[in-house]
């Protein structure tokens, strides 16, 4: 019982220690506050939004005992597809062009998710390998669609969506992410779909014996993951008024780190959406914090890499303890 308490507290401890670390650094080195600064908070939340969106999708997959490595380039692929479609409709009403772009992109980005699900659920390819292959496919397709360059979009509504702050305070991408977080939390914690996701991760055999359609469920999980990557791609394109195939490249590591910092187990069966939210905030604080205290940005990769290893090490030792030292 104590173990479960530690499990739920540890992401908060991580968040707290990172916040204190940068607060102290900012005060000592620059005599300024890191956290008590509206611009910084807005920046951290905006930084966190994209890895968090990817992280939510992959939280579902990881709870069910899988992994999805294709999300970063699925996001870039979606960004490029969205930018290409929307800008090719430049002669239309901007709202119509935007809606067609959004719907078409979300449908197209489901295809890599469906293929992932089919490879894993239907052909029993290990998730790590199947989605690694899709990582390459989505990456290649993204650059092919974009012809190797960044695709600009000139759509005034999209520009507004990407840059407006509601009440001058909350960036719209952050608001969209917050709404999606609540929906995902609801689905995972209150519905049968969520319950079966945990059951499959806990004991696939038991889930099968209970009559759960594990194949169909697994397929849906990888489609959800791709759907969130698509949404992240849309938001990226809105923020920068352009789509780039490499948009999500650094976010794969960030998003999976967020899930594990958030307390999900690499072995499946546990994890929570709010854990992933905290994990994404930790990553964003590390990244923005390093920029803020003027450390070279390349240290970010190193820091996030170490954080991922620490998170999985903690998970492993927790699992060992809960298995009675086995």
């Amino acid at each position: 019982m104590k173990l479960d308490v530690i499990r739920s507290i540890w992401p908060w401890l991580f968040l707290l220690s990172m916040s204190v670390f940068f607060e102290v650094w900012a005060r000592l080195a620059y005599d300024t506050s890191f956290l008590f600064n509206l611009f910084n908070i807005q920046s951290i939340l905006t930084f966190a939004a994209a890895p968090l969106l990817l992280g939510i999708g992959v939280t579902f997959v990881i709870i069910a005992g899988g992994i999805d490595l294709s999300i970063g380039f699925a996001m870039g692929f979606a960004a490029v597809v969205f930018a290409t479609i929307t800008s090719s409709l430049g002669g239309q009403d901007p709202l119509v062009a935007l809606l067609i772009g959004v719907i078409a992109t979300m449908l197209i980005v489901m295809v890599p998710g469906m293929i992932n699900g089919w490879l894993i659920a239907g052909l029993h390819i290990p998730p790590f390998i199947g989605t690694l292959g899709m990582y390459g496919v989505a990456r290649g397709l993204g650059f092919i669609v974009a012809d190797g360059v960044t695709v600009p979009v000139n759509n005034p509504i999209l520009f507004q969506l990407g840059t407006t702050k509601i009440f001058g305070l909350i960036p719209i991408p952050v608001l969209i992410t917050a709404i999606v977080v609540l929906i995902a939390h609801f689905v995972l914690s209150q519905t049968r779909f969520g319950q079966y996701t945990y059951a499959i991760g806990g004991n696939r055999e038991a889930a099968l014996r209970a009559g759960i359609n594990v194949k169909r469920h697994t397929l849906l999980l990888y489609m959800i993951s791709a759907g969130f990557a698509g949404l992240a791609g849309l938001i990226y394109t809105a923020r920068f008024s352009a789509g780039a195939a490499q948009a999500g490249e650094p976010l794969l590591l960030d998003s999976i780190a967020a899930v594990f910092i958030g307390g999900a187990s690499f072995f499946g069966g546990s994890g929570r959406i709010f854990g992933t939210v905290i994990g994404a905030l930790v990553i964003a604080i590390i990244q923005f914090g390093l920029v803020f205290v003027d450390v070279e940005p390349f240290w970010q990769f190193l820091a996030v890499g170490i954080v991922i290893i620490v998170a999985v090490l903690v998970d492993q030792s927790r699992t060992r303890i809960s298995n009675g030292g086995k």
Partner: protein
Amino acid sequence: MLEVNGVSKHFGGVKALNNVSMNLQAGEVLALAGDNGAGKSTLIKIISGVHAPDTGSLAYQDQPLHANSPLQARNLGIETIYQDLALADNLDVGANIFLGREPMKSFLGMTQIIDRQRMLKESREVLHSLDIEIPESSLEQPVRNLSGGQRQAIAISRAIYWNAKLLIMDEPTAALGVPEQRKVLELIDKLRTQKIGIIFISHNLNDIFAASDRILILRQGRVVGESKISETSREKVVSQMVSG
């Protein structure tokens, strides 16, 4: 409630079962004994719908039984309890008992959500009806925190809640400590009073003699002995298992 008539089963050239007949009454506990490869597993797999017999027939509750899958058998009330296969360790007691058949309730009239209160309440009731003691504080914990015997009991409660009439238990006391073994045997006793038919496979003669009413001994796919527990002895059972 169950009748097996002249069932044979081949796997390639191997005759796993040879003209086996047996029967089971409601509220009766039948032990299946025999050395490895005697045909015990094949027999229970035929009863639970995993395999179909080559020849011979089965009847269940006075109807011919043709279960083609474990799911079909389960829908008829024939449930097999396997050690450690049945539970999702990361879910709590109620979630396991109701897995795949969760009670739902309305959420703001918009959608359906899992009724966890009801799962907890009904789990408590079914555990209570079987005299299974699980502390209130553990009911909402992942079942991995419970003992092997408690988990076994939850798997059995799950079957009973969903109206199992015939329970097949494969080595229910293996991998349990002595006090836990005793609890499982008590539970079997309780199930008997509720008119559940039980077939259990065990290597442990102490358990067989403590819990069952009747014993069926298989050797090389044939029935080599059948008697009431009160009319046989350990020595006799062992000699039948070894030399038929």
